[in-house]
């Protein structure tokens, strides 16, 4: 049980360590591209892109929660 908890917590920690830098780097690239190469986005932001971003937001949270709860760590 203890070992299971530790493994899941380590997984949560690992996943967050991978996801957070990726998100941060993706955002910086997004920022730079938008500022210096605006025509790339021409004619504009598709609505599905924004909905996709919000869905990604939700999905990442859901994945982290599933991994976290698998640890069966009590609150």
């Amino acid at each position, binding site marked *: 049980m203890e070992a299971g908890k530790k493994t899941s917590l380590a997984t949560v*920690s690992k996943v*967050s360590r991978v*996801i*957070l830098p990726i*998100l*941060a780097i*993706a*955002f910086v690239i*997004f*920022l730079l591209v*938008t*500022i210096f190469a*605006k025509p790339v*986005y021409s*004619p*504009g*932001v*598709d*609505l*599905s*892109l*924004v*909905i996709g*971003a*919000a*869905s*990604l*937001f*939700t*999905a*990442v*949270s*859901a994945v*982290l*929660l599933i991994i*976290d*709860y698998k640890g069966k*760590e*009590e*609150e």
Partner: protein
Amino acid sequence: MEIKLIPLVVVIVYLLAMVGIGVYFTRRAGKSEADYYAAGKSIPSFWGGMAIASDYTSAGTMVAGLGVTVAFAGLGINMWAGPLVLIGFMLAAFTIGPRLRKKAFTSVPDYISGFGNSVFLRAASAIIIVFIMAVYLVVQLKAIGLVGEYVLGLPYITSVLIVGGVLIIYIALGGMMSSIWTGVVQMFLMLFTVFALAIATLVSAGGLTNLVAGVAEKSPWFLTMEGKIGLSFPVTYAFIMMFIMLSMPHMIMRIFATRSEVGARRTLVWGAFWTGFWTIPWIIVLAGVVYFVMPFKRPDMGFIVLTGDLMPSAVMVGLALAALLAACMSTTSAQLVAASSAISYDIYARVIRRNIEEVSKSTLTWWGRISVLVLGIIVLIIALHPPAFVAKMLLLAGSCGGAAFLAPLYFGLYWPKVNKYSIGAAMICGFATVIITNPMFNIIPIKPEPWAGIIGTIVSAIVLIIVTVATSNKAGTNQAKEAS
């Protein structure tokens, strides 16, 4: 102006339900200051996450934010804010959230004054919190008044007094416990109405493709990263939204209400989940307002107008109005609790009386209730004649919160050399920078408004680093060492 009866009845039922929740939690909240301000540190993460998402979705989102987006900022503002808010929630969940919860804090000044056990830091941070929360409260109450006036046909002052009065009653009675559980009910209401309106928008437009094509033809600027006003506003606005998530006292106090460090982490990830889940239909609603409603002289009322246009049922309009009020009230309730704790728990019990052991738990709770009432009445009076636009005041409050508390929170938890001198200097310099550079005070105005918060936060971080290095030999009690 004609008063609309059925929406009014729906709103009255909603308000009575909120008061009922406050009455239900009166006894439990009255046991001690931890019960009143931190809900007895007993909130399960699922519900806590829903309440934190509800706090995050305020008048700034559903009234002022909608108005700004559909009038001039465009969809790009959401592309900036979305990733930043996600990073904010995750950062809080995996960094400061569990560390803050590990210590038995009841308020943000508890954490700040922990550096060198400083009474000055506690008093200064409590005063800054009361200022920020008061500005924020006026914003939410003004939005409530405008919505009530526009939709129900009630005079602005009547709307503010009725809804504000209800809010003060249920928070004075139930403290953080009623703030959280009303927040949960309010989040359900917002999810239901926004999803229903998004579906109605897609059906009326003939699908997502037609909606995008229609918006592109009617308002092409809406589908760009910079809207009508360039990149500066949406980018800086999004950063302020992230600062609100990361450092505003009413958000941080939700962490103190969780059951444990694990609970704090899960609560914040649940908060991210619910915020993201709610944002999906909200994007469609924003496009729907541009397509079906704009141009319109009151863009901030777009949500209600779109509901009336696409779902012309008085009950549905009433529910949409209740959802808008819920967005304002959930945030306002958390802010009232944060401001009340700063007044009674920090200023009265810890600064004036000095020894909290001398103050009985029930006395402290009653001081909390009285401070909610007094502060609520003062804010209500200011909200009757509010000094500026909702969006401008929201940005002022968010900017002050980020500039005063972001650097102290993060550096303080992770850098062992941080001490009371650097925490105090960073907090005061950050706050002062916002006051000096925010165009509302016209001292050294920098436009657009969100820049004041960005500059203030950078100044605060630089001051903290310099003063920490310069005073490292005089270091007081260090939170980072104890929290790690």
